């Protein structure tokens, strides 16, 4: 589904991705962890070409993401993305946030889009908030709506960039529950998170990144039984403590 081969990327002089090799199979859930600034966000943002790559090969759903002929908007329909800061559209209600892409990209009628939005809002547990604007919702509710919005285009892959880092402890759970359900349904997921509990329960593999490189890529059980790499063990020790 997603195949990185020797992918490099620079921001000016900064070599953010230094030869990434990574494969994510269909229905697989891969968690990426690593210190701040190691390039995790940049890595997942290359998957839907929010960040273009400099060299190497990146194939998503069978298309070379950075080929000149690729229709990015077409590519992005199949890849849902959830951000740390939710990024809901404040001028639209919860339901309208979810309906926007189906209506304006896929051309669904208002009625059909609304029906689908209600299904998705039910799935994330807040159908009663359909007609409320984001400013009046808690962080956890906003993030669940953001997930529903990303799911509205029926993506084949979901990308999550620290979806719970901006949330208080009580709200983290409600978001992780939704993500866990998605994983169970067989969604292909690439998740940047420091939520060890989620990684343990819901992921198939854990990837540890540091300074633009993938240092370790192990099946989840193995990773938590004892990461091979010293740096990964140290990092894990820090994350679990708090």
């Amino acid at each position, binding site marked *: 589904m997603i195949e990185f081969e020797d992918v490099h990327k620079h921001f000016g002089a900064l070599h953010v991705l230094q030869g990434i090799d990574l494969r994510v199979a269909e229905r697989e859930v891969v968690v990426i962890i690593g210190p701040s600034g190691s390039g995790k966000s940049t890595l997942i943002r290359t998957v*839907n070409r*929010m960040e273009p790559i400099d060299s190497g090969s990146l194939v998503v759903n069978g298309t070379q993401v950075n080929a000149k002929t690729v229709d990015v*908007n*077409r590519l*992005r*329909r199949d*890849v*849902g*993305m959830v*951000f740390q*800061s939710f*990024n*809901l*559209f*404040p*001028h639209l209600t919860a339901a309208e946030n979810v309906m*926007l*892409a189906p209506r*304006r*990209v896929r051309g669904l009628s208002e009625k059909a889009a609304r029906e689908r939005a209600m299904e998705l809002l039910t799935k994330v547990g807040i159908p009663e908030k359909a007609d409320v604007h984001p400013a009046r919702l808690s962080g956890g509710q906003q993030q669940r709506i*953001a997930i529903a*919005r*990303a799911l*509205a*285009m029926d993506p084949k892959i979901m990308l999550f960039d620290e979806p719970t880092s901006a949330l208080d402890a009580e709200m983290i759970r409600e978001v992780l529950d939704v993500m866990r359900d998605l994983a169970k349904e067989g969604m292909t997921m690439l998740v940047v998170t420091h939520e060890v509990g989620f990684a343990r329960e819901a992921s198939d593999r854990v990837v540890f990144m540091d300074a633009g490189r993938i240092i370790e890529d192990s099946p989840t059980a193995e990773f938590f039984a004892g990461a091979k790499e010293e740096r990964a063990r140290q990092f894990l020790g820090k994350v679990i403590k708090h």
Partner: protein
Amino acid sequence: MRPDTWHLFIDPGILRFFAEGLMWTVLLSITSIALSFAVGLLFALGRLSTRAWLRWPSIAYVEGVLAVPVLLLIVYFSIKGSSLFQPFFGEDFDLPRFWAGVLGLSMYTSAIIAEILRAGILALPRGQSEAARALGLSYPRTMRFVVLPQALRAMVPALMAQLTTIIKDTSLVGTIGFFELYRSARIIYTQNFNPIEALGFISIIYFVICFTLSQLSRRLELGQAPKDVRAKLAEIQLRDQVA
């Protein structure tokens, strides 16, 4: 002062005359603000474009126009406007003074509106357009459905302020001989030798309209523009006064 002429200002015929001047002032203002808005939007988007061939002409237009007094633009179109359009409308096309005024006012105001809109668009968190693009919306759709609705809402007070400025600036169109509110007062006082009264009378009319609009825009203010935008707007308005 000429108290003996005060009765003129309750005379129905004279009042109708002023009302006609006011009607043209309002028509000039509305036409100009509408045209300014459309043109300003194009130049705001042009200046924000990543394509140099769109960006540079937009910067040149905005910066160039803002540095010229609006009266000069109005006079320019009243003198040169006809020959400017003759290639399109034929040899004996004569640009009506109304349209010379609209073009002069709109050229200037469009540059200001371009800057107001650009500030509003830049002030939106980057996550807004990113989220829209990540959903598969194209750049124009992202602008249309996500960025502009929010930027415009934040810019309502600044745009209303521009409307009041344009209403006052229509008096400049009177100087090229177009009949509007200021011109109507001029005609009255040259006949009755009472400039203080005539000009005082229309000042009250300008005041009532502009004050009402500025109060209205304060009510309409749907959320404060962020601090950096307000700073940017203050800078634009300052430049506006200097120019």
